[in-house]
């Protein structure tokens, strides 16, 4: 649940929360470690100082303890009590009897009272060596808690850290380091001092040893080191640590809030601007508030909106001027088209007139040549007849070319009127094939005619359709090699139109030439030179089909022949039906 809440909260909340958590945890952990180390250091220093005091007192008091010099012992104790940390001092004989004692403040009455002093001594008794007190030290270092003047419990020195923590937390009582030190003599080596060794040991009939004077015991020093001074210092230090940690946390929180706002405020503004931009307002911008990444992002955003606005203005200007430019271009194109139409019409008229003017003398020439060949003007020799035969043949080709040119020019000049009638295409196609039988038989071509049922008649000019279909079939026969096959199909389409296809077995037409075969005088470079023609047949056929609102096109596979399709509507108005789908 908290994670869901965290995920749903804002970036500002997340940053502030995480930063605050990290700072609080870090400060708390560091403060705890610092205080813990300070406690350990202070406890160690107190114990160390107390040991030094006790050791020093043990060294200096040995003479007085041996002599039983109470006055000297009191002087030494008073000297030791000058140290603020020392609360009390007890000096015991080697059998544990109290020789001298003194203390400060509340401890003065303690050590002055024999019962309390005995209790104090008993608290430092080594509990683990009750049966062998003089084998191991009979006293050991302790921690003593004091509650309102009453001695509470004593504990091992190793537990002092816990006592300090309780004291710092306010749940413990003032503690005293109760430290002991043995008063002992020097250690002497007697390996080369037989007389002293014998003096010290021979009386007891015990075996002498090389170190007969091993640490002679004189007594014990018990020193109480008060923690009050350390406690005050520790509390003051802990207060400073808490204060510093609080200040660090407060400053860190404030810095986190400032930085978060520094980050999120521009982001919020940018988000608002982006919303406006998405709604089409490109005039918005935001002044960068800094030079960091946020400032760079703001500057980039401003550049982006500026660029978008510039593009939008350019588009508006382009849209505003586009219509007038299109109109201008259209007018220019219309003018050019009219010029071209005019030129084309002039060309057609020129061709028509030229063809017409050429046809008349050519007809006269043909008649005269025919008469010569027929011997009207007298008998001719073989060579003359042969020459006249060639001349007559070429005159015939020239007349055919002129006729075609004349027909084409008439068609393109829109000067041809159609005689509409009902045309039965299957009958017409058979008549055409029959009419070309001479030509097909010359090339030994097989012509297959296939109709899918009885074709319905269509409206058209019979002669013009005959001319168009003849040109297509004749073209197929021309480009089909000798002895090959031509196939003619006719289908009634669903829209009542008729689709006629003429398939040859020629060399085929390249794909890029399929549209060019209907242009006048077009000859494919791949066409055999033996195939002669005016190059106008397909152009005339296209024009004638177009007059019937039909269409003609070709499909071919190189090397496998070509197939020409002619679609003729049943009536001239039906021109928009799909072709390929209905075949």
């Amino acid at each position, binding site marked *: 649940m908290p994670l869901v809440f965290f995920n749903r909260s804002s970036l500002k909340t997340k940053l502030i929360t995480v930063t605050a958590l990290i700072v609080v945890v870090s400060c708390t952990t560091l403060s705890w470690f610092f205080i813990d180390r300070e406690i350990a250091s202070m406890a160690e220093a107190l114990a160390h100082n107390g040991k030094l005091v006790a050791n020093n007192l043990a060294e200096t008091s*040995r*003479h007085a303890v*041996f*002599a*039983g010099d109470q006055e000297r012992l009191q002087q030494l104790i008073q000297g030791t009590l000058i140290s603020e940390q020392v609360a009390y001092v007890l000096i015991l004989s080697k059998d544990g009897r109290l020789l001298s004692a003194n203390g400060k403040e509340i401890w003065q009455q303690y050590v002055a009272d024999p019962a309390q002093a005995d209790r104090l001594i008993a608290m430092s008794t080594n509990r683990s060596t009750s049966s062998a007190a003089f084998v191991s030290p009979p006293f050991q270092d302790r921690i003593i808690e004091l509650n309102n003047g009453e001695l509470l419990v004593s504990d091992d020195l190793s537990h002092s850290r816990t006592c300090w923590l309780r004291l710092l937390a306010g749940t413990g009582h003032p503690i005293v380091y109760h430290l002991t030190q043995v008063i002992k*003599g*020097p250690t*002497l080596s*007697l*390996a*080369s*001092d*037989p*007389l*002293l*060794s*014998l*003096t*010290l040991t*021979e*009386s007891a*009939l015990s*075996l*002498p*040893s*090389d170190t*007969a*004077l091993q640490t*002679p015991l*004189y007594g014990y020093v018990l020193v109480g080191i008060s923690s009050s001074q350390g406690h005050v210092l520790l509390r003051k230090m802990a207060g400073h640590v808490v204060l510093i940690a609080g200040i660090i946390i407060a400053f860190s929180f404030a810095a986190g809030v400032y930085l978060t706002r520094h980050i999120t405020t521009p982001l919020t503004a940018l988000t608002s601007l982006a919303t406006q931009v998405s709604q089409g307002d490109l005039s918005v911008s935001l002044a960068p508030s800094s030079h960091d990444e946020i400032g760079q992002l703001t500057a980039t955003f401003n550049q982006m909106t500026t660029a978008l606005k510039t593009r939008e203005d350019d588009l508006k200007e382009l849209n505003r001027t586009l219509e007038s430019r299109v109109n201008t271009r259209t007018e220019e194109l219309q003018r050019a088209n009219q010029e071209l139409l005019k030129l084309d019409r002039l060309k057609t008229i020129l061709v028509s007139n030229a063809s017409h003017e050429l046809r008349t003398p050519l007809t006269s020439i043909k008649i005269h040549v025919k008469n010569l060949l027929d011997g009207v003007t007298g008998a001719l020799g073989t060579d003359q007849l042969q020459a006249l035969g060639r001349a007559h043949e070429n005159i015939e080709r020239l007349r055919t070319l002129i006729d075609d040119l004349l027909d084409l020019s008439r068609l393109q000049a829109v000067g041809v009127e159609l005689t509409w009638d009902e045309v039965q295409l299957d009958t017409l196609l058979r008549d055409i094939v029959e009419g070309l039988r001479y030509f097909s038989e010359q090339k030994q071509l097989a012509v297959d005619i296939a109709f899918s049922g009885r074709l319905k008649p269509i409206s058209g000019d019979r002669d013009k359709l005959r001319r168009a279909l003849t040109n297509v079939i004749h073209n197929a026969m021309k480009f089909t090699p000798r002895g090959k096959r031509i196939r003619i199909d006719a289908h009634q389409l669903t829209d009542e139109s008729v689709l006629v296809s003429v398939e040859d077995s020629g060399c085929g037409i390249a794909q890029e030439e399929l549209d060019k075969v209907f242009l006048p005088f077009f000859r494919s470079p791949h066409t055999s030179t033996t195939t002669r023609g005016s190059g106008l047949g397909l152009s005339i056929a296209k024009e004638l089909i177009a007059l019937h609102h039909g269409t003609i096109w070709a499909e071919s596979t190189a090397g496998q022949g070509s197939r020409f399709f002619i679609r003729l509507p049943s009536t001239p108005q039906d021109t928009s039906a799909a072709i390929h789908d209905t075949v």
Partner: protein
Amino acid sequence: MPRSIPTFHSLARVALFLWFGCGVMVALDVDVHAAEIVVLKSSDVGYYTQAVQGFRQALPAHAHMIEYTLREGATDAREIGQSIRAGHPDLVLAVGLNAALTAKLEIPDLPVVFCLVLNPELHGLPAGNMTGVLMKIPHQQQLESIKSIAPGARRIGVLYDEHHQAAAISSAKLQAKLLGLQLIGSAVTKRGGVPGALMALLPQIDLLWVLPDHTVVTDESLPFLLESTFDAKIPLFGFSSTFVQRGALGALVIEPLDAGTQAAQLAAAILRDPATGGLRMVQPNHPKLVLNLNTAEYLGLTIAPDLVHMASRLYGGPGAFASQGNQTNIAP
């Protein structure tokens, strides 16, 4: 192989060799060479071993010696005594009090020489077949040394056990008087009385003379004696080099090696003439002087250079420690 005729030089060499041989034989006696000696040590303490070493060095190298060491507590004393008796050696050397008492109890029929026993008279030593080397330096010799070291000290204080030393102190007082000194004795009856007696004695004396007394010198009182005299700037003259090392002015000490050597001389005498087995015990004949030059300087004393040269061991001064061999280097 023809025998060569001896020349004058060869004859002279033979004569010289015979003359030296006869001299050694006279010095150490042929009987000593063949003697079998048993050494019985109280323990393996270092100075016992040094005494045995001195004993061995003073005898001919090929004297046959068997060494026994008593175990701690002397629980095997009877077995060792019986074993020694069964071997029937020519002489037994007992080193230390336990060994001497064992010899007294277990070996009554063999000559016994003992050493390193502080107070033999307290333990019924010596018995009839025994003799030994005393560990106590004659008081007169010590008083003479005191006078030499501290000529200005006239009042000599001494702490002593009233039960055991009273007679000796009375004798010493007379000897001191002959030397122009005043011996002020302070009798103590128990060890706890030492501090009080010393505190009372110190104001009256110029020098404290410490004797090997069980009651006065204990491991607890030793630092007290040293520190008290040091604090009162009173010179302390004792019997232990440890005293001197710890701040006493000087001491006449007995080296264990010397004690062993002296025991060897006594043994040789007994072996040469078994009838002398009941000889009196002998005094230590080579006590050594030990001095602390720093203490002398602290006390404002100037020790004569001859004494410094005579000292076997010096503490303080230019070197921390000087043995007899290099003492000339540190002589003032």
